[in-house]
């Protein structure tokens, strides 16, 4: 993922209602820092970062600009009625060859993220299944063949690296957008998403062993 070829899009517009704490998920605090801090901290060498905001847009902007100012904020005002596909579509204006799209509630192991940076072609990152809310994936010969399969040990991590020209603008879930591009290279990472209160407790413990500079 060379910086000059890559636009990073972090989707943070949603309300995170399943988590039930009234805060957009990227602002949820894990060991005293918001999730968005960990995401940005991993992206120091990238200079085209776009964060899609909606619910609590101003709070999110205030938080992010404390850490880094050269961010493009993209607004999805209709966040209540739309999915991440709509957010991603809005962010695509003037982007580069590849889009690294990341869901705003994902924590990823630092070393694993650094390994992803060395990959120069499309991939979908997957992780061991941790939550009932995750999107299970079928892996075969290091390829992601299918989403939403039953009995899989693995789930989509919420991180994908895709050529911009292949993205169809539509108001659907991100995995639905990726679905028509399968099979795609799958890369296993250690990551965790936060959808429910029980995910949150897991994530706090997970972060202690997987994230540097807590």
């Amino acid at each position: 993922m060379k910086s000059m070829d890559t636009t990073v899009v972090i989707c943070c517009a949603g309300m995170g209602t399943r988590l039930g704490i009234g805060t957009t998920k990227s602002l949820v605090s894990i060991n005293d820092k918001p999730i968005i801090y960990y995401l940005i901290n991993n992206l120091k060498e990238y200079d085209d970062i776009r964060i899609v905001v909606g619910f609590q847009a101003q709070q999110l902007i205030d938080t992010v600009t404390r850490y880094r100012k050269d961010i493009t904020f993209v607004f999805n005002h209709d966040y209540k009625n739309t999915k991440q596909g709509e957010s991603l579509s809005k962010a695509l204006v003037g982007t580069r060859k590849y889009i690294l799209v990341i869901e705003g509630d994902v924590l990823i192991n630092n070393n694993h993220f650094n390994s992803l940076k060395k990959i120069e072609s499309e991939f979908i990152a997957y992780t061991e299944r941790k939550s009932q809310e995750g999107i299970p994936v079928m892996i075969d010969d290091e390829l992601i063949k299918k989403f939403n399969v039953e009995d899989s040990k693995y789930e989509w991590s919420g991180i994908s690296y895709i050529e911009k020209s292949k993205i169809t603008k539509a108001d659907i879930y991100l995995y639905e957008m990726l679905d028509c591009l399968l099979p795609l290279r799958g890369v296993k990472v250690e990551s965790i998403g936060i959808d429910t209160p029980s995910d949150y407790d897991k994530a706090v413990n997970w972060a202690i062993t997987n994230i540097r500079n807590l």
Partner: protein
Amino acid sequence: MSTYVFLFDLDSTITKEEILPKIAEAINKKDEMRELTEKAMVGDIPFKNSFLKRVEVLKEISIEEAKKIVASVELNSEIVKFIKKNKKRCYVVTGNLDVWIELLMKKIGVDKSHIYCSKAETENGYLKQVISVADKELITKQFVQPIVSVGDGDNDSGMAKNSEIAIGYGGVRRIANSLIQNIDFAFYDEKKCAKFLEKLL
């Protein structure tokens, strides 16, 4: 190449500091001015009322002196560079007065036909009265080509609503709440903002 025309607010978008408080400084009325400006920018009082009040405070300064002060305010150089490079497609849409911004506009290289602003009558080198206050929503409705607008204040919301791509620039002051509700993109770094504008050409 796109067909966009680019519309820029002046205060705190093209300039790095606010213009009216800067003029007020010369006649020791900065605090009074700051309070009125603040209320207008966040939308506590209508822009037109606030602007007329602010002009009243600044009437005692000569036009020549005011012009010079305005032309000396610090600018967002990357945004100015974009405007200079793309003169034909760039317009300044500001509530500020024609007689005060004249020199600054020359300095930036914006032709008279590319300026939409408030207008005033002068007498013996001093401001006599304001003739019209620019309404950005009405002004932008007149454009035929699709608009990319850049602004930061409450009075930029109407312009944002009429834009194909509305950008908030928060590098100088916080983007007004009402404008945040109407923009597609926000920038807090002028280089980043100028680079994005380049991609829209």
